[in-house]
């Protein structure tokens, strides 16, 4: 024992022999379950959408203010950085939306079985990807 804290890690087993307590592996050694990953993503996309509201506010305030202010926001949104922001914003919106719908179902005590939440994991991922791509295809057609 080199550290006082090690004393807490010693115990007697059922035979009365002194043994080191087993340590569980560090959290990063576990494989992330998909549902846990999606739960984290739900929070991150929610925060991302919060940042995205700044973009919506800028757009509305500029439109209500002056032609030059509106030209500036439209210029930014059609720049590559603006389009990148809007792409991320679209994906975040759909991910948070479909994951949120699943949360509403869970609130109503539906979909807690392993087979159900495993299927809805992939449904959330597929729906957010398909809707993001579809939105941009429609967007570029309109443009």
């Amino acid at each position, binding site marked *: 024992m080199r550290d006082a804290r090690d004393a807490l890690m010693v115990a007697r087993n059922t035979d009365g022999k002194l043994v080191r307590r087993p340590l569980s592996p560090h959290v990063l050694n576990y494989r992330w379950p998909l549902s846990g990953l999606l739960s984290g993503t739900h*929070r991150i996309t*929610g*925060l991302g*959408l*919060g940042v995205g*509201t*700044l973009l*919506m*506010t800028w757009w*509305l*305030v500029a*439109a*209500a*203010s002056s*032609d030059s202010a*509106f030209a500036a926001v*439209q210029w930014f949104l059609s720049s590559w950085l603006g389009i990148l922001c809007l792409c991320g914003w*679209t994906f975040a*919106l759909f991910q948070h*939306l479909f994951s*949120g*719908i699943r*949360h*509403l179902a869970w*609130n109503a*005590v539906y979909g*807690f*079985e392993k087979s159900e939440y495993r299927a809805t994991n992939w449904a959330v991922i597929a729906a957010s990807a398909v809707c993001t791509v579809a*939105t941009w295809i*429609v*967007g570029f057609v*309109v*443009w």
Partner: protein
Amino acid sequence: MASPGDTPRIDMLRSPLGRARGVGAAHAGTGHSWAQTVTAIALVPLSLWFVCGMIRMIGASRHDVAAWLSGPVPMVLMILLIVATFHHLQLGVQAVIDDYVREPGLRLGSLLVVKGAAVVLALLCIVSVLRLGFL
């Protein structure tokens, strides 16, 4: 109660007195969860409508935006979207801050900043929509 294979369901965890009072151990909190849920339900159709509206506004001029928002239905839906979005947002960020910020002063400070910013941004959006609609 549950047939084999079903997830067991517990319908009542509270004492009859606790149920009658209608508050949990913190004496508050169901209001937060309920508001989060109600705004979430409202935002399902509203955000889909918003995405469609934004696609229509690609390459639009200020005049086009004003013409769109001067209709009573788009104006009302847009204001509803703004109110539901910022209310839902500040409730959600509050949950994140409560989870991760441990120092009480920093927690209170960040909650004040987030909630204040949500009110300011929501008012900026609403006033802009009204100004565009009534321009």
